[in-house]
């Protein structure tokens, strides 16, 4: 099977399994409605926090509220998409412990697609919705001299950001193969990552910014391109083309995460644990 057809097979399997989970969640209709609303509220609390801060101050790290809302909207929407698509991968460890992971391995579909679609939950649209609403508000209120490249960067950031966060989820899943009980570590990178990116880079220590730019390149979800769009200086020196590098970084992250997943799966199949 070629890489391409494996990808198509994976998408097909993903769709099938996600469909089953959607139907499952609809069997508890009230719960479904409650959790959609709840998801919207829970994920919105971060923004409420930011609003509370701005009830006391006019800027944070030198950035205005619309500017921070711009960062917030991009970070939360991108993360929300990744969370919707792959957000349940943290059940992988539990599936390995109870042995139900083996069932996925005897099915004629790529394992990653099956794991990704596991516990697919439409309620996660709540996060995307509130992220998109904040982003929409930010786009109309932020003081930017819009040009074609700047306008184009907005959708590019959302898509590349979603891909970067997806890569983090996949890498986290691969990590769980080696440390099944330590699923929570990936929260530091996923939920922690999206929280970090909601605030301007100028707030954080330079070493942290460097780490998030060069080592775990979450900065390309929004910080680097958004700083350009908003005409704000980025705390560390970067070449000019870096502001357009998000898609490349996303591809690189996905490739690396895919490799990590393969190594993890191979290890599982040779050690059984």
């Amino acid at each position, binding site marked *: 099977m070629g890489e391409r057809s494996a990808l198509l097979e994976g998408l097909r399997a993903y769709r099938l399994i996600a469909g089953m989970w959607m139907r499952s969640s609809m069997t508890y209709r009230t719960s479904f409605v409650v959790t959609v609303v709840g998801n919207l509220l829970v994920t919105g609390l971060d923004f409420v926090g930011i609003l509370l801060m701005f009830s006391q101050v006019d800027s944070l790290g030198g950035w205005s509220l619309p500017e921070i809302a711009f960062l917030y909207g991009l970070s939360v929407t991108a993360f929300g998409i990744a969370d919707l698509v792959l957000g349940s991968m943290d059940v992988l460890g539990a599936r390995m412990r109870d042995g139900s992971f083996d069932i996925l391995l005897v099915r004629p579909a790529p394992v990653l697609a099956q794991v990704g679609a596991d516990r697919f939950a439409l309620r996660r649209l709540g996060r995307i919705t509130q992220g998109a609403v904040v982003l929409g508000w930010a786009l109309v209120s932020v003081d930017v001299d819009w040009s074609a490249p700047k306008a184009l960067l907005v959708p590019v950031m959302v898509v590349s950001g979603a891909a970067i966060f997806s890569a983090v989820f996949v890498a986290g899943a691969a990590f769980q193969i080696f440390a099944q009980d330590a699923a929570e570590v990936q929260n*530091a*990178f996923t939920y922690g990552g999206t929280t970090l990116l909601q605030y301007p880079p100028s707030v954080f220590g330079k070493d942290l910014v460097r780490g998030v730019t060069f080592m775990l390149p979450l900065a390309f979800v929004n910080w680097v391109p958004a700083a350009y769009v908003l005409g704000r200086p980025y705390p560390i020196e970067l070449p000019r083309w870096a502001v357009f590098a998000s898609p490349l970084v996303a591809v690189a992250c996905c490739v690396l995460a895919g490799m990590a997943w393969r190594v993890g799966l191979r290890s599982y199949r040779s050690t059984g644990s």
Partner: protein
Amino acid sequence: MGSGRLYLAVAAGGFRRYATYRAATVAGVFTNTAFGVILVYTYLALWDEKPHLGGYDQAQAVTYVWLGQCLYATLAIQGGGAEKDLMERIRTGEIAVDLYRPADLQLWWLAGDVGRALFQMLGRGVVPFTFGAVFFPMALPTSVTPWAAFVVTLLLAAVVSFALRYLVALSVFWLMDGMGVNQVLMITGIFFSGMVLPLNAFPGLLGDIVRVLPWAAQIQMPADVLMGETDPLGAFAFQAAWAVALLAAGRLLQSAATRRVVVQGG
């Protein structure tokens, strides 16, 4: 007294149960530390902009952050303590077994949750707090008295936290599904406990309201007692009042629920 020993044993059981999840504990320490670092920087920026916000200086704001990370799992701020098991037992009907146990239902669960809290504190809370103290400027007392008062206020916080969650969990007797309840617990817990922002930095009327709600007993009170921002006796009284009120409400609801179980036959 015999029954005292019983609850002590239940608490020890709660402690031990969580102590077995070693990898999960390490993972939790890592995550709390990461979140602490992120929050500290944003708070520093905020206090840079507005010094003495909520009566705190920067070191106090930093201390508040790390205390919040330390108590996050300890007080099950967004759920995940004894109430999770309780809800599951109510949902499956196994709660009927507990009702026939020769022990007080509420005390039984309280003991287990206090044991859990103690482990989470030692296993998950102390390391991020120490990390914070080493790498960031914190406002920690140097005399014994505030620390002693801090221990008392923590204990009271644990009871209030349990009483709140117990009350919410009992609602599953009527709702038969814990999903929505869990959501409510999570939202209220994060927001009203001051995980997002210290309650004393909340503006205007909203601030006045959140500071008298029971969630204020969880992080804000211990933080203020530790940093000498409030009169310890007043804090104890506030926490104890909420603890008594919530435990009593829990008892009322519990007896209503028990009657329901008996009437319906489980």
